[in-house]
């Protein structure tokens, strides 16, 4: 029986293991190996061992910094927008809840590209921004600025924040809030000390879901930034496709992965430490 069970377990794990092996572990290993190589004469990869590719990453600090800024601010904006909306959905929406959730999802039945392109029209001289501009006589076009990219990022990724936060708030035990109010805590204090900490797992999940793709975003900056904003995605494109220097691009990608790992684990450590401390203080 034990044998059969272990065979079954192996079979069940096989698809996921194969997936991770072939689509994550092996490509990642190839990237790491490539990052130490040299550029072949006609471009591409030539085996070798050198650290030069990593030393050159420091020449691209400006786009790295710009990308981090964009992703951090974008994630923060998503949290700020998602919190009240998720709170409303979880506690006040009543019978409208299902409808509202569907309304959040519906735009995402359209392709990412089309939605982003639509923003270009809205923000362009033929769209709302252009009409407002000619009406007021003031230059208000944000197309081609970091703000336009921010708008596109937040618009596209907001649902990935709303749903985890909503789920954690949905599960929230109402009696804790009542208890807080019985103990004469005000609304703000109740929110800060009860609702927010209990919603924290949702915020953490949502932040990861939003922050990581924002770091690698290429389409939104290209479409709404008019190519003016130069980010990590552009650097990778430059290294791999323009310069056809795969080792240089691989080194950049490895550095990006390492920095992201550090940032994300630091964030997780920080948030979980806060929760543990609170739990201890409650005990």
């Amino acid at each position, binding site marked *: 029986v034990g044998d059969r069970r272990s065979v079954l377990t192996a079979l069940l794990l096989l698809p996921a293991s194969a997936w991770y092996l072939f689509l994550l572990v092996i490509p990642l290993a190839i990237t790491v190996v490539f990052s130490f190589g040299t*550029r072949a*004469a*006609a*471009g*591409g990869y030539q085996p070798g061992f050198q650290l030069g590719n990593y030393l*050159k990453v420091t*020449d*691209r600090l*400006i*786009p790295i910094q*710009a990308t981090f800024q964009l992703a951090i601010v974008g994630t923060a904006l998503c949290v700020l927008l998602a919190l009240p909306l998720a709170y409303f959905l979880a506690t006040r929406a009543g019978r409208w809840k299902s409808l509202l959730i569907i309304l959040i999802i519906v735009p995402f039945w359209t392709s990412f590209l089309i939605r982003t392109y639509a923003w270009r029209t809205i923000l*362009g*001289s*033929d769209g709302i921004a252009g009409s407002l501009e000619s009406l007021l006589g003031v230059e208000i076009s944000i*197309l*081609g*600025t*970091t703000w336009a990219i921010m708008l596109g990022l937040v618009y596209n990724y907001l649902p990935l924040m709303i749903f985890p936060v909503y789920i954690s708030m949905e599960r929230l035990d109402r009696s804790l809030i009542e208890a807080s109010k019985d103990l004469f805590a005000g609304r703000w204090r109740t929110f800060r000390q009860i609702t927010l900490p209990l919603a924290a797992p949702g915020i953490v999940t949502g932040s990861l879901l939003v922050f990581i793709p924002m770091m690698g975003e290429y389409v939104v900056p290209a479409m709404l*930034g*008019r*190519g*003016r*904003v*130069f980010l990590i995605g*552009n*650097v990778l494109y*430059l*290294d*791999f*496709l*323009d*310069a*056809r*220097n795969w080792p240089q691009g691989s080194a950049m990608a490895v550095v990006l992965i390492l920095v992201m790992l550090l940032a994300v684990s630091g964030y997780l450590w920080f948030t979980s430490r806060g929760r543990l401390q609170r739990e201890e203080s409650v005990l």
Partner: protein
Amino acid sequence: VNTGSNTELARQLRVAASRPMDRRGFLYVAGALGASGALAACGTSAPSTPPTNPPAPSAASAASTEPSVEPSAAVVHENVEPEFNLYNWVDYDAPETTAGFEQEYKTKVILEVFTSNEEALAKFQAGGGSGYDMMAPTGYILPSFIAGNFILKLDKSRLGNYGNIDPKFLNLPFDPSSEYYIPKDWGTTGFMYRSSDVTETPKGWKDLFALGEKYAGKIGILDDKPVNIGAALKSLGHSINSVDPTELDAAAEVLYAFAPYVGNVSNDYKQIVRDKDMLIHMGWNGDAAVLRFEEANKDTVYVVPEEGTEFWVDAWVIPTDAAHPNAAYAWLDYLMRPAIAAQETAFTLYGNAFSGSYDLLAPDIRNDPTIFPPDELVAKLEPFVDNEASQQRNDIWATFRSKISA
């Protein structure tokens, strides 16, 4: 790209093509290309052709209505496969051309597009190049395709119309004995501006950079490293292909000073120029001609920079793994027929390499100095060479791009 207006344009051009015309000696222009050095091998032999009589109406209408195409005499294309996979730039063949080919050879053209030569090459280098029967990257990248063994040596005995190629477009530096390619279109990289809003008359790259401050945020550039670095180098009187560190440093300073004024970075800029979101934009002569032929945008002026600029030739090549070689050879032979070549130029508004087709072109195309620039300018044109290994050029481009939004 607005296909609707392209169809309308093609219609207008066909109407124009049926009017009497006086011939512009293209040979004489192409002959001057020899002076550029790129075409030195075939430099001197271009006679200035005297104007010929207007072609017979039947010849003119050959390009103007349904292509009544003359099948190639020498080669019969048999066993053309029912499928033909074309990998090409967007809007780069007239719909009539593909439709006519499909009809004549009972095949189906399946088009997939690429947006940069590097993208196409990367696809082949990553092993994704099988599945295509034909493509037309720009000449400068061919050595990398050849080095990777990604394209076939052409069997010219299968191309009955090979003799129609103007020799000046053969044996170009990227394939010195023309083993691999058939020239498709050629043109220049310069810039265009809306003359109803831009009161100055810029003539060259230097003028373009000087206008930065006045038209801040209204000037667009191509998303193309060699073009921008080449423009800066040319504005200082150097070759677009320079890898000299001091010259590149000086060019970098020109670009960095210009960066704050750049309003758009894109190779798909026609709509932006139509909307006047940008009043000045770097670009290619064919795109500018498309805009100029539109009533609302006829104030679009294209400038072939006086200091000189890039002269490019796109090259038809057959991938090594082409599954439908018979269709590929039939396609090449078909495109080399003068009527089809004229039809293609009327659609793309780029010059082609088949001098026999020029008689069939409408005068406003043949006499257009942006499509066929005057010889003293052509003498200053240079083809790009592949300088992608230059770390300094990559760094300049990355720094320049970072400075645009900073």
